[in-house]
């Protein structure tokens, strides 16, 4: 029994997959704190879909996938900013138009060259079959993101909470905005490998949303988010070995289970805790003559 539980660790490809997942999950979880508080969840979804044509082109040309994905993501972000600035169309509509356009282009490209680009791998992820070169790219992207966040998380927190105060203190709000957008694109690119384009947004939102229910401190929220992302990604990949199911599905299902648990049982913001507080308030009300 015990030996069968350790079975995945006997395969090098599994060990690589597990640790790569954990790394990606941790970085996404860390960033998800900023994404959820800034209200950029839809933006995360959009960018993760918009990177698909870039990945397809990169594979076709034999370039590193991260370069293609990143370029494509930035083009999409630029296109959104441009359309939003030039037209009175609402922001969510702009995001909807641009990211579906990019995604459609990606699907078209992949369908035109089915033998050279792995559609399933891009849309649903293929961490168990990840190539060494791709692991290196993921590690580099993650390391850069972690470094930037370690150095600048306080500035980014102020930017999310009160951009006017940041501006009043002479901080470059435009630069912070772009930094956060770049981090979002970069992590979306990395997460593509783990869970695929369809589920990247979950990695960028669910851990942060869960952590938000569990604490009232931003620093703690970041830590919880990163830990949740890493642990669920590790065990999600691990479970997918036994279930022989989609890794992305396993990881995101685990994250959702933890979110639901937090939703119900969180000490302060959970459903049961709110009910308790309400009941206590009513009792106090009744006690006052």
């Amino acid at each position, binding site marked *: 029994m015990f030996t069968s539980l350790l079975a995945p660790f006997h395969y090098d490809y599994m060990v690589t997959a597990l640790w790569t997942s954990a790394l990606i999950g941790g970085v996404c979880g860390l960033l998800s704190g900023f994404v959820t508080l800034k209200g950029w969840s839809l933006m995360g979804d959009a960018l993760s879909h918009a990177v698909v044509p870039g990945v397809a082109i990169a594979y076709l040309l034999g370039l590193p996938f991260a370069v293609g994905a990143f370029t494509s993501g930035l083009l999409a972000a630029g296109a959104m900013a441009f359309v939003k600035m030039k037209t009175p169309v609402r922001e969510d509509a702009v995001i909807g138009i641009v990211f579906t356009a990019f995604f459609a282009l990606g699907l078209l490209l992949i369908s035109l060259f089915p033998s050279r680009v792995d559609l399933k791998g891009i849309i649903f992820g293929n961490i168990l079959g990840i190539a060494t070169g791709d692991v290196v790219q993921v590690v580099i992207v993650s390391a850069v993101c972690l470094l930037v966040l370690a150095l600048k998380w306080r500035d980014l927190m*102020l930017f999310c909470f*009160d951009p006017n*105060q940041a501006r009043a*203190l*002479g901080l470059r709000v435009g630069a912070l905005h772009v930094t956060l957008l770049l981090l979002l694109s970069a992590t979306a690119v990395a997460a593509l490998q783990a869970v695929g384009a369809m589920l990247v947004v979950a990695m960028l939102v669910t851990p942060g949303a869960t952590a938000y229910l569990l604490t009232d*401190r931003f620093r*703690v929220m970041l830590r919880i988010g990163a830990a949740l992302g890493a642990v669920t990604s590790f065990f999600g990949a691990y479970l997918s070995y036994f279930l022989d199911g989609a890794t992305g599905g396993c990881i995101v299902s685990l994250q959702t289970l933890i979110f639901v648990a937090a939703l119900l049982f969180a000490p302060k913001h959970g459903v049961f805790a709110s009910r308790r507080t309400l009941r206590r308030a009513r009792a106090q009300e009744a006690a006052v003559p």
Partner: protein
Amino acid sequence: MPTRSCGRFSARGTRRRAKFPLPVPTSSSPPLSLAAIDVAVTYPNGLTALRDASFRLAGGTICALVGVNGSGKSTLFKALMGFVTPTTGRVEIDGRPVREAQRQSWVAYVPQAEEVDWTFPVSVHDVVMMGRYGYMNFLRIASAADRTAVETSLRRVGMWDYRDRQIGELSGGQKKRVFVARALAQAGRIILLDEPFTGVDVGTEEAIVALLRELRDEGRLILVSTHNLGSVPEFCDQVVLINRTVLAYGPTSEVFTAENLTRAFGGALRLFDLAQSTVNDHDGRSVTVLTDDERPLVLGKRGHLEYLDRTGREKLMSDREEEQKGKS
């Protein structure tokens, strides 16, 4: 938790102040001047919110920025803070561009309650620490001086005991005090407050006014945007009247005339002329004025302003008494 606001913020805040002096070296830093020079702001949609707006103020004063909604009040605020760049004209702080003043952390901003995300997971202490970013290094790691400044500021507004609360778990008045504390921690020499008395109980309003007076006496320039006319003569030394441009600016007693206010407010002002009133003459001055939220502005026949708080206005009171005697 009850709001502890009885005139002064709290006994403790007052008592400890001597022990924790304000972080800003007020005596060595002379008052700053703030000037708008022919400022015009046109938004990308073609709306010109403000044109030819000019005024000049110098530190050691409390000035009200008065105008109706849509008069360009908040646009002028944004221009002064450097949040919007004037299409033409310029803003100068101590004769220098706004950007320079920002780098020096000279201008502190107390936002309207609606502008703040109260569900953000930050504590009272965290928020006040955000006033110190300009003094920190690249990594924004708080030094002992930063912590002292935060503590001093929080004690000064009587919120030190609440430092670990999440900001959403405070009353309206407490929330306002936290952001005033942030401006103090920033050691802002010009402090802009956007509608500071909306959603605040009378006790807190009085306490904030008392604090603003202290800050003025330390040589700071306090600019308060408000549409609450009645309280303006009470605590503002100067007024800038706005309606798409600066209509008038200067000492309150000179600017706050029925004529100027009618120009600034147009039809938005309700006027009750008691001379034409159904209140009988023999009622004399025994007229009770009730209002639900804001204080009404009461003007005498010669433009005399009504002051409830008469400390520091002894000269004015005796002048008026002389006038009264001369007449009878």
